[in-house]
Every structure is written in structure tokens, then in C-alpha cells.
């Protein structure tokens, strides 16, 4: 137990350092940009008609007049106090915007994460067990085609089929246009989340299934499976008893590693479905040079990704007897 705590502690320190790195790199990239936030957001014409003081006030607002390092130090100091700054476009605290957007994205992310994980594991195990035969070819074909398909185009395709052509789902927005947000029911939210979640799941499955298939194929070629066959165990029993068990560990790592991919996919998919989630906010912040917001989004998603990796490592240690018992003994 002590060993495990020490392990987690070390990992936490590493994560903190990585997050510091992420924030610094993001900050550097944003402030290295030659794009002028005033021109993008206020416009050349409007700027021309402003007085010197007004322009200076805007420069100060967008932070263009402060040297980048001073600005970063200030930002970091505030973050340590729990303040991620104010979004320049939304004119609200970054944490508030991120919280709101994240909670709206959460249905998408979670359902896609779970669905693609279960389906990917299942398809991967089946393909690996039937390596080289028809089920394997079909599943692998699906995975290769899907991983060659841009997520946003798949989203457009689903939108064309289910919303425009069949009319089953709304074209966009997570709530019906013109409705008071308090009047929005859970059903409405879910209804609008179906297509984006579906898109994310379809794309997420491919990667997990392909990797699980590799592992499963390795397991099926292992000495212990050969021995199980030699001992007269039947094919079904071998897949369920030995295959699943040994594919489970890599599957844990795979599942938590897919968090980053799903968040990435949500950026594209939310854009197509104009779903007001975190991904859409990231695009808006990027296009509008809203440094505090984009910085906040990047650091918080990175924290989620690293957190996922940590959970995977800890789970791995709890599940794998070689680590669990090995550590207990030493």
C-alpha cells in the first residue's frame, strides 16, 4: 500500500510539472502569433476611427502591451490562487466558461468514451480470435475505413442523412433555438447530443478495436493458449477465459489513452453540429485570439488527459497480479 501511494505521489509531481510545461508552451505559442487580436476582433475600420486612448485601452484589454513573460508570470500567480483569468471574448471568468461548456460536452464525451470502449473491446476480441477469417476481415475493414475518414466529414455525412434527409434529428444547437435555458428538458439535451455522440463513438471504436485485435492475436498465438488447446479446452472457453483476461490489461491503458482522442474529436464534431461545448469554445477562442480562454481550455483538457493516464496506471497495478503481489512481497 505504501509502495502504491509513493508511486501515485511521484506520478502526481510529474503531472504537475507536465501541466506547467503545457501552460508555458501554450502561452509561448499564443504570444508568438503574428495575428493581431485587435484586427481580428475589432476590425481595421473600427480601429481607424478610434481615438488614441481608446486603442490603448483595447491594447491593454487584450494584453498586447505587456511583455509575454511578465504576463505569463502574472497568469501563473493567479492560477495558483485558483483564478484562470477572464475570457476576453465572453467577458466572464475562464473557469466559469470552461465549467459550463465542459458540463455540456460531458454527455458527448462520456457516452462516446464508454460506447467506443465496450464496442471496441468486443470487436477487437472477436477480430483477434478469428484472425484472418471473415469476421476479422470485416471488422478490420471497418476500422481501416473509419480511421481514414475525417471525423468532421463523418459528422457532416450523419447530419446529411439523419437531419436533412430523414429529418429525425435537429440540425444544430444543444437546445432548441429561442427556448429559455430553464425550459430545456433533459430529453432535449440528450436528443441534441445523439448525433455528435454517435459520430464520436463510431470514430473512437476503430482505434480501440484495432489495438485490441493486435493484442488478442498475440494472446491467441501465445504458448499458454497453445497449451490450453493441447489440454483440450474448447475455442470458446479459451477466448473467454484466457483471451479476455489477458487483453483486459492493455485495454485499460487503451481506454484511458483514448480520452485525448475523444476530446480532440469533439472539437471537430461540435463545430459541425454547432454544439455549444468545450470543443467549440476552443475553436472560438483560437480564432478570436482569446488567450486566457484557450490557455485555460488547453491546461484543463491536458489535466484530464494526464489524470486519465494516472488512473490507468493505478488500475493496472491493482489488476495485474504481478504488480499487486510483487509489490506486496518486496
Amino acid at each position, binding site marked *: 500500500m505504501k509502495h502504491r501511494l509513493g508511486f501515485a505521489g511521484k506520478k502526481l509531481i510529474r503531472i504537475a510539472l507536465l501541466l506547467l510545461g503545457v501552460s508555458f508552451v501554450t502561452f509561448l505559442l499564443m504570444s508568438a502569433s503574428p495575428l493581431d487580436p485587435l484586427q481580428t476582433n475589432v476590425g481595421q475600420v473600427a480601429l481607424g476611427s478610434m481615438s488614441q486612448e481608446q486603442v490603448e485601452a483595447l491594447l491593454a484589454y487584450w494584453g498586447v502591451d505587456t511583455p509575454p513573460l511578465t504576463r505569463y508570470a502574472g497568469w501563473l500567480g493567479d492560477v495558483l490562487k485558483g483564478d484562470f483569468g477572464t475570457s476576453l471574448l465572453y467577458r466572464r471568468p475562464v473557469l466559469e466558461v470552461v465549467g459550463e461548456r465542459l458540463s455540456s460536452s460531458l454527455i458527448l464525451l462520456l457516452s462516446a468514451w464508454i460506447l467506443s470502449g465496450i464496442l471496441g473491446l468486443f470487436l477487437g476480441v472477436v477480430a483477434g480470435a478469428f484472425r*484472418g477469417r471473415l469476421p476479422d476481415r470485416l471488422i478490420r475493414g471497418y476500422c481501416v475505413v473509419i480511421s481514414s475518414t475525417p471525423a468532421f466529414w463523418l459528422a457532416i455525412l450523419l447530419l446529411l442523412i439523419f437531419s436533412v434527409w430523414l429529418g429525425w434529428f435537429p440540425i444544430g444547437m444543444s437546445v432548441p433555438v429561442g427556448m429559455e435555458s430553464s425550459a430545456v428538458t433533459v430529453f432535449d439535451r440528450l436528443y441534441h447530443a445523439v448525433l455528435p455522440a454517435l459520430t464520436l463513438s463510431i470514430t473512437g471504436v476503430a482505434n480501440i478495436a484495432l489495438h485490441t485485435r493486435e493484442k488478442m492475436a498475440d494472446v491467441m498465438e501465445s*504458448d*499458454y493458449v*497453445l*497449451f*490450453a*488447446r*493441447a*489440454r*483440450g*479446452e474448447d475455442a470458446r*472457453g479459451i477466448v473467454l*477465459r*484466457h483471451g479476455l*483476461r*489477458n487483453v*483486459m*490489461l492493455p485495454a485499460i491503458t487503451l481506454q484511458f489513452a483514448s480520452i485525448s482522442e475523444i476530446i480532440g474529436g469533439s472539437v471537430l464534431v461540435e463545430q459541425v453540429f454547432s454544439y455549444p461545448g468545450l470543443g467549440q469554445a476552443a475553436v472560438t477562442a483560437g480564432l478570436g485570439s482569446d488567450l486566457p480562454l484557450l490557455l485555460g481550455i488547453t491546461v484543463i483538457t491536458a489535466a484530464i488527459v494526464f489524470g486519465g493516464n494516472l488512473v490507468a496506471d493505478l488500475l493496472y497495478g491493482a489488476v*495485474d*497480479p*504481478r504488480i499487486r*503481489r*510483487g509489490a506486496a512481497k518486496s
Partner: protein
Amino acid sequence: MEPILKIRNLSISFKQYEKGTKQRKIQTIRNLSLEILPGQVAAVVGESGSGKSLLAHGILGILPYNSQMKGEILYDGRTLDKKRAEELRGREIALIPQGVSWLDPLMKVGPQLFKGKKDAQTKTRYREALARYGLGPETEELYPFELSGGMARRVLIASAVAEKPRLVIADEPTPGLDERTAVRILGHFRELADEGAAVLLITHDLRLALTIADQVTVFYNGETIEKASPEDFQDIRRLKAPFTKALWTAMPEHDFKAAEIEGPGDVGGDA
């Protein structure tokens, strides 16, 4: 007495790519013939990596998909085809593999031995087998990585013995063991034969094989080059093939005699 296993002109080959796109057939076993009576230990001796294991897999019907088998295998007087092998393996015909890597690393020994069965009868059968080799019930709770090399071998032997097999195929059961443990493990095979089972011992270690075998088939480059009884190995003049002579000379106790007789001949040649 009728032989329990009769192998006639068995050939096993598999396809492999050479450099680029050329494909070739690799013949690992050519025209092997062998008979084992109940109560006998038959040793098949060949150098490491010569595909001896394929013989075991061929009998059990678990060859890899890119391989081909020709010839005839008779078990108990009837042809042993894939279907019959599937019915018999793990029951009448048992494999004892090399070592611990042949056990599922993530499953405890007990459930692994029981093959998913949970009835008391199966459990007792395996517990008795484990006990026979000095392994208590606590072994069932261990994971393979917690077994020592010798323990792992005894678990593997118990896995076969519990089924009371008529034919035991032991595939390289001794590498990585110290001399004493190896001799003890081989002793267990002799015991099984003495109780009436037929034992096919596949190994690279001629010297150890001679301690328990009733007949020895030496195998070089896929070809059977020598069939002999252990007594033949008392005297090098009774051995025919140069490779066997070389093996014989390589045995420590014959070291000094090597100088007295003519050299072992061209080992790496067309033997």
C-alpha cells in the same frame, strides 16, 4: 503388446518467405517413423531449434496454420486425425510443455488446472495429482510468476497426470533446471511409464534422455539418422551416424574416450 502410438513416414513442413518475395517450404521433419508401447519411454533427440516441438503439436493436432503434415499417425490402432486428436487431447493424450510461459500469466494455478470446471471431483483429481508431486493446496492460489522453475514443471506434470493419460508427450521438460531437479523431473516420467503410460520424450539432451529412455530416435536436419536402444550408447561402435557419435562424444563421461577412437566425422555436413 500393441503399440499405443504408431507414426509412419511423418513429414511436417511450413512455408516461409526468403529475402523479398520468394517463398520456400521448410521441411522440419522428414519421414519420421516411430512406435511406442505402453510402459515405454521413447526419446526423440535433436538439436535445439530443429522443430522437434512440431512433432508434439502434430500429434496433438495443434500445428500452426502455415504448416503441412503428411504421413500417418495411428493411436491405439486407429488413425489419429484432427478431429480425433481434438477429442483425445487433454484426456488420453497429455502434453507436458517446456516451462512456466505455457501457463496463463494472469490466472491462478488452481483455476487454470481445472480448465473452468468447478465440480468437486475434478478438483480432487487435480489436488491428488499436485500432492503426488509434493505440492500442497496452497499452490492453487499462486500465480505462475510465483512458481520456481522446478515447481512450475511439477505443476505441468500434475496437469497431465490428473487426467490419467495413456500417452504423455513431454516437450523439452528440463531446460533451465539444475542437474538434480532435472534428474528428479525425468524420474517422474519413468514412473509414469512404469505405471503403464507411454511417454514420448522430446529433448535436445541425449545424456539425460539415456537415463530413462527405452528407445532413442536421433534427429538431425529433419531426418531420422539413428534409431538405437540405450545399450547401443554404451559403445560408440554400435552407433551409425556421425552426428550421434558427435553427441555421444560430447557427453562428459565419454570425454576421455574420444581420443582413442577415430573422430566423430563431419557433423555439419550432409548428415
